């Protein structure tokens, strides 16, 4: 029977993440952005509630929660500050290729050391269709430039493409950037000159699953960003008076606010649906790509309108809505961007013969 209940455990996880975001991320979002760092106390606080290892296997001390928990947490953290949400998560999306390709042993070898050195960051670079980076591999190592990563240091760089991936942990040169959005996570251009390959994997199926899970996490972050943009601008529209009444009570804006609320829910429902498919062991590659496209499109409807509702104030950095707009755009540039995801979902669709099933049919 169709059921949208998260359950007590996930509700508790959600509440914990929300409290953390409200206590540690949102109040300091401009400070973190300016410093391009969230600072040690925030990192410590996050580590103390155990969210660093939310999805890690229990044998490595993790909570072994699933994709849905990750999505719920990511939304809450990003509603506080999406840049900070990246900064406090040492492995970030790089977790998925490690788990998919190498399993627990690889995670122990490559991932676990980052947890023991606070402030360490791994990052995942999409190196397949849609990437703008030019990475060359030879017997001597990896050479190339990565235009932007949302990190001020990268201790482990995982490259992912359609066929598999490889990891680099030495020979990574950082050049600091200002960054467009997500500045709290830092921003760098990375240069590699014959950097040694630490591990490599050839596994197209694992690569597809890793990419799907990465897309889903980014989509969940986008939901958080647009939710906060919609909510902030909704509250503002109730306070701001123009032409004799709160601007929210002019129908042009009340309809826009209703549509923005719909957008947030649309994106979240597709994220949850894809996460549910992953956890149910159903094929979820297309669903994750689809959730990413929806989240990116809806975020680029909601967040510019969040600025619009605040008018001139929205354009000023005294208010956070311009930041939400930059972050929505920056998040959806990752993993080959929206077009790559659209292409993946579109190719899956046109390979469908007969009726298109919108959802998973007939389990239990």
């Amino acid at each position, binding site marked *: 029977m169709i059921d949208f209940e998260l359950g007590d455990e996930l509700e508790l996880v959600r509440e914990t993440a929300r409290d953390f975001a409200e206590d540690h991320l949102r109040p300091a979002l401009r400070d973190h952005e300016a410093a391009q760092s969230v600072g040690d106390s925030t990192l410590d606080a996050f580590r103390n509630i155990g969210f660093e290892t939310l999805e890690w296997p229990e044998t490595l001390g993790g909570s072994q929660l699933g994709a849905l928990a990750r999505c719920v947490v990511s939304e809450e953290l990003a509603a506080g500050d999406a840049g900070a949400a990246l900064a406090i998560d040492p492995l970030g999306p790089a977790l998925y290729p490690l788990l998919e390709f190498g399993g627990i042993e690889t995670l122990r070898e490559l991932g676990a050391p980052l947890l023991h050195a606070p402030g360490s960051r791994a990052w995942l670079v999409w190196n397949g269709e849609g990437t703008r980076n030019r990475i060359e591999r030879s017997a001597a190592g990896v050479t190339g430039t990565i235009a932007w990563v949302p990190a001020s240091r990268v201790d482990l760089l995982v490259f992912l493409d359609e066929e598999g991936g490889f990891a680099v942990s030495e020979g990574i040169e950082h050049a600091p950037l200002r960054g467009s959005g997500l500045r709290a996570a830092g921003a760098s251009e990375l240069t590699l000159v014959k950097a040694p390959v630490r591990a490599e994997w050839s596994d197209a199926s694992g690569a597809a699953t890793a990419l799907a899970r990465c897309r889903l996490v980014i989509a969940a972050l986008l939901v958080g960003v647009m939710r906060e943009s919609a909510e902030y601008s909704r509250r503002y529209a109730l306070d701001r008076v123009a032409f004799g009444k709160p601007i929210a*009570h002019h129908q042009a804006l009340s309809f826009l606010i*209703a549509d923005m609320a719909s957008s947030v829910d649309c994106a979240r429902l597709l994220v949850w649906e894809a996460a549910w498919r992953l956890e149910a062991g159903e094929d979820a590659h297309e669903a994750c790509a689809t959730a990413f496209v929806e989240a990116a499109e809806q975020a680029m409807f909601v967040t510019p309108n969040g600025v619009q509702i605040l008018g001139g104030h929205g354009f000023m950095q005294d208010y956070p809505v311009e930041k939400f707009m930059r972050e929505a755009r920056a998040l959806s540039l990752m993993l080959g961007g929206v077009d790559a995801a659209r292409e993946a979902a579109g190719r899956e*669709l046109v390979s469908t013969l007969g009726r298109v099933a919108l959802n998973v049919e007939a389990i239990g």
Partner: protein
Amino acid sequence: MNLSIDSETQKRIDGVRKLGESQIRPVGLEADRLGRPTPADHPFFDLLLEIGMGRSRWVGEEPAEDSDTAGPRVGNSRNMLCISEEMSYWDRGVAVSFPGPGLGEPPLISMGTADQKARFLGPFLEPDRPRWGSFAMTEPGAGSDVAAIASSARKDGGDWILNGAKSFAANASRADWIVVWATVDPSLGREGHRAFVVERGTPGLGDFVVERKMGLKAYESTSFTLRDCRVPGANLIGGEEHYARRAGFKGAMRSFNATRPLVAIMAVGIGRAALDEALAFARENNLLGDARIRDRLERIRRRLRVARLLCWRAAWLADHGRPNIVEASMSKAVAPNVALEAASLGMELLGEVGGRGDHLIEKLFRDVKAMDIVEGTGQVQRIVMARHLVQLPRD
């Protein structure tokens, strides 16, 4: 969380699908081609009766009072949504034409006295022939603004005298009875509304005009008038006590709505039919190698999935008696536009073939527009949402 269709519901969907392929769609295409509602004596309706349809949901007896130990009753409108979507996939207009008490049934079940249920729903328990009930709220001057209905009800002894004009009532000219809404005092708004069962042949009920429509031609949308139409007091649904009792709850609004997601999911069904047809046409004509076309088809599938999830969620909330006004209106605001986009894209892929006016997608394109109008237009849904989100005033 479970976002799959359970296998029992899937079996019922498969049953609708069989009927849809063999009967519903052909009957719908026939009505569209001939430009008339399916006649009441069409053999299709006899067939529906034979397979157990055309019945009332009312079970023929009053349910026992819920005991405290039974716990909160969890509704099952989610399954109804799945069935309704599949029905609309095959033909929305035909689905409305099905024999049965129709939209008159819910007010009779929720407000009617035992005697009224027996009199008006009883004949639908084991109907001897295809029978219809009908429902008339909309007037030429009152659509979404239902509080503005002008049809009047005046007490005369033990009877009521009805006067006014009603529009777009489904199956009204063939119905055994019509649930007619009228007002005892227009200045009272909804508080003044009363529902009457007006039986076929009642003097003063007449001037039936079957309207000509853009689409959904398989069922009749009928306008009629009431001229000093005398209705016995026993046909006031719920009796006068019901309205006296309700007046005590003035201002109390229901916190959930089960109808909007049910109507919204019908749009999803139409949209799915358009997507499947568009995809098939594009494949036959070697269009799927074009990324532009793949992108647009991808968008349609994605938006239909979203629309369906919005409907499912609103129904799930209603089934648990949880507030869902925003969610219900959201589903109804989103789904019809998605479905229209699906049918419109289908037309574009057809190209000039769509211009011929004889392709299923072209019919769906005309049918689907109604979905953003019935059960509260998309604009009304946004107003409802805004009342909750930003306390949009009612004036």
